[in-house]
């Protein structure tokens, strides 16, 4: 028996919105430590890793490890039926081929439940090695989303260059070139507005802009985003989900000399 209850459906909605553009279907691996999801996009260029800790749920019970393959489009459709303030409960029997998603309004006056068929997905899990990143940048998630959106107008790829002075995002294309520089904030008044750079050595990497834009669908989940970079290693874009876990996107760098 698996049962997980969250106080607010809106969090789950945001999580689904954050991954459903990249993934059509994915397996939710449930264990007593929480829910894990790991999947590559169709082009096998990026990897999504979602961790929801059991202690972040209002109620969490998982007697046996359970893998639930879901069509994320269908799941998102079901979550659209929930009000943001509703309680949401996911339930499944051991070895079940369906999952039940139940929404309860705050005053318990409305209870709706939806049953969704599960899928058999044979996905292999990738082992992600520990990396000492050369640069770790923390910045407001909104700012990052804005930068990715703006630069996407210029080019398919974005160069991220991180130095002592700050982090520079640039793109060049037919229209011209665009450069956005962010300096480390001097005084940290509000943590969520700060740009913090931890650098061991400077690094310059090129990434596909569309993917970065797809990652920014997770912006509503968190005020801050963390970019971790190292030469010839995938970029890690991490959004923390308050009290619950985090969602990490890995994106392989573009091979140089391919784009002007």
């Amino acid at each position, binding site marked *: 028996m698996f049962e997980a209850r969250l106080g607010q459906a809106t969090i789950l909605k945001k999580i689904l919105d954050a991954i459903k553009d990249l993934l059509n279907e994915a397996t939710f691996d449930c264990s007593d430590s929480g829910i894990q999801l790991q999947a590559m996009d169709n082009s096998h260029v990026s990897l999504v890793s979602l961790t929801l800790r059991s202690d972040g749920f209002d109620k969490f019970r998982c007697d046996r490890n359970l893998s639930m393959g879901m069509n994320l489009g269908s799941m998102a459709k079901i979550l659209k039926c929930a009000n943001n303030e509703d309680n949401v409960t996911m339930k499944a029997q051991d070895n079940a081929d369906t999952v039940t998603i139940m929404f309860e309004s705050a005053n318990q006056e409305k209870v709706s439940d939806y049953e969704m068929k599960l899928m058999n997905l044979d996905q292999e899990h*990738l082992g992600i090695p520990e990396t000492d990143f050369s640069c770790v940048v923390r910045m407001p998630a909104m700012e990052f989303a804005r930068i990715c959106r703006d630069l996407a107008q210029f080019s398919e790829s974005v160069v991220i260059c991180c130095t002592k002075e700050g982090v520079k995002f640039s793109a060049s294309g037919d229209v011209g070139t665009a450069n956005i520089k962010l300096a480390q904030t001097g005084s940290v008044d509000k943590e969520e507005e700060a740009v913090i750079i931890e650098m061991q050595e400077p690094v310059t990497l090129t990434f596909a802009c*569309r993917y970065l834009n797809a990652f920014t669908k997770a912006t509503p989940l968190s005020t801050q985003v963390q970019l971790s970079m190292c030469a010839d290693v995938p970029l890690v874009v991490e959004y923390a989900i308050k009290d619950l876990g985090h969602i990490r996107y890995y994106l392989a760098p573009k091979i140089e000399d391919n784009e002007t």
Partner: protein
Amino acid sequence: MSKKATRASKPKADPDAEGSAKMSKASALKKVLFMSQELLPKDADDGHLRLERFFHPGHGKEALFMTHPDGRIMEFVEYAEPRRSWLVNSEVCSNGRIYMTTPVDPTLLALYHLRKHCAQKAMSLDNIAVEEASTSRLLNEILDPENLKCVADVKSSGEQKFYRYNQERTLAWLALKTRQVVRILKEKQVHCGHSAQSQNFVRSEKLAAENVSNEMDYTRMACDIVGRYLDADLHGLLINYLHIPSEIQAIVEEKAAAQKRKSMAGKDEGSDSKKIKLNDSDAAAKLKSSGLVDSDGDPNASITSPTAAPLKERSLTAKEKALAKGAKGTKSIASFFKVK
């Protein structure tokens, strides 16, 4: 199925005296019955055609059968239309149904009783269902015990013969029957696909060759025909035995095949590609009506059952195509992270 339908027997006024005998047992006063001339007893034969009720396994209740003095048994097939009545001579016959006779293998009817009584122990025919007059008449007078060895183990001790129901034998025999029906269906060129097709619509030979339904459609149809004379569970067993996939599954597969055909037709241009397109949307409409899929979105995306193979053939949305395009020039993530 009946060999011919010579209109021979009519109520009372008809010179054939049998008519009246029949009428006396039937529920309505008069019925109109089509039957083959040769079934009518020769003038003053001793035997009479009799209308009798036997248990019909396919209907799950008793049904009317006609028995011939020589042991043949015929099922009544009824064609009922609302608001129809017959005018027989100067009388109105309010029962406007048409009845036809079609020969039935009594073994099929006996099978039900064998399954019911002789599944565990062998019994002689006259000991089965002694209290039911119709059943014992069926088993002892009409049925040819020789045929029972197709569905039962026969043990004899002296004169007595005992029968015990044998499932493997039964299924093999039913499969044989099904194959015979398949042959006839093919011979008569009965269309057995999922879609309806006009028989008198003249199609070009090429198209006809393309649209032939596959072997499985024939088998399914034949199995359904045979299944009409069987208990529901035995019919299910027969379906499993013949490995017939469910119709919904078949439609899904057909849809996939139609897609393939479409892409093939695109290559060698030609006028019939239009027809095939129709065919394709047809299958999609059927999928929709079968309640398998949501009405919006592309039909395949929401089939979540693991059996639905065509999922992979789903065409990409514009968003996905854009993402795939964006991925160009990027290394695969799998080259950095190894499979656990």
